[in-house]
């Protein structure tokens, strides 16, 4: 089940701000006229898109029991440069159960966001693996 598509403008000022926040002094981000975006920059889309852009929470799990387990970005060419307009869409790509280290079960859910040009060319994919624990993370944190 996929969320509704959203439009993301890859903005110059946000690239520079993000690069500084991740302790970069790389001119490829900070002074280039048309910089590429930092490798983890596309993760920011999740914080301003709406619930309609995410797959339904009931298909993912209780938000209080979700940990961010793993994150991956794949670029089909250079990372998108400032000024690029992207259309993103997030879907549940996979979900499976796994036995936890402390006993008990946990569910792993892989969410994939595809970022395409308005013409439909695939530019990048962001894959988030969340761990849905059988108890609240505060009782046994292993990840952030």
């Amino acid at each position, binding site marked *: 089940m996929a969320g509704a598509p959203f439009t993301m403008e890859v903005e110059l000022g946000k690239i520079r701000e993000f690069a500084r926040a991740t*302790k970069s002094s790389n001119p*490829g981000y900070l002074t280039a006229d048309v*910089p590429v975006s930092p*490798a*983890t920059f596309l993760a920011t889309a999740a914080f301003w898109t709406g619930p309609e852009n995410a797959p339904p929470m009931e298909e993912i799990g209780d938000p209080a029991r979700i940990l961010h387990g793993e*994150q991956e970005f794949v670029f089909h060419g250079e990372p998108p440069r400032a000024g690029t307009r992207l259309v993103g869409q997030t879907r549940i790509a996979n979900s499976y159960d796994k036995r936890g280290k402390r006993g008990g079960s946990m569910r792993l859910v892989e969410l994939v966001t595809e970022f395409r040009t308005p013409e439909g060319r695939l530019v990048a994919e962001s894959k988030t693996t969340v761990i849905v624990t059988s108890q609240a993370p*505060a009782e046994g944190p292993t990840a952030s």
Partner: protein
Amino acid sequence: MTNATTIRTNPTTWDELQLGVTAAPFTDAPLTRTDFVRYQGASGDMNPIHHDEQFARAAGFPTVFAVGMLPAGILATYATDWLGAANIRRFQVRFGEQAWPDDVLTYTGRVAGRREENGRRLVDVELTATRQTGGVHLRGSATFIVT
């Protein structure tokens, strides 16, 4: 982040990037709450567990802890300073132990694979972010196009 001398001494060409070759490790300044807030502002992730002391304690933590995507982003900074911002084609991290204010993280990279695909040379690197305790905060990998 790295100075010009470090960039020059790190291996960056196809011939230099043999299996097992490493980049100079980068040991960051101690993590601060300001680092967390600055990253949260830049990314839009306003989860209070990373900046609100009372909220973090009420949730059972001794204090606030790093938003995992901050060291993940610094690890990407380390990797792209080494092999080029425009050359990266894949970046992946798995989150391990949490990182806390005043933690000193050391970032390392090592060549783990080399291949040619469609006439392009690709190098896979293994990446880590390790706490001053020796505990692993992040284990990651990345792929770069190399000339």
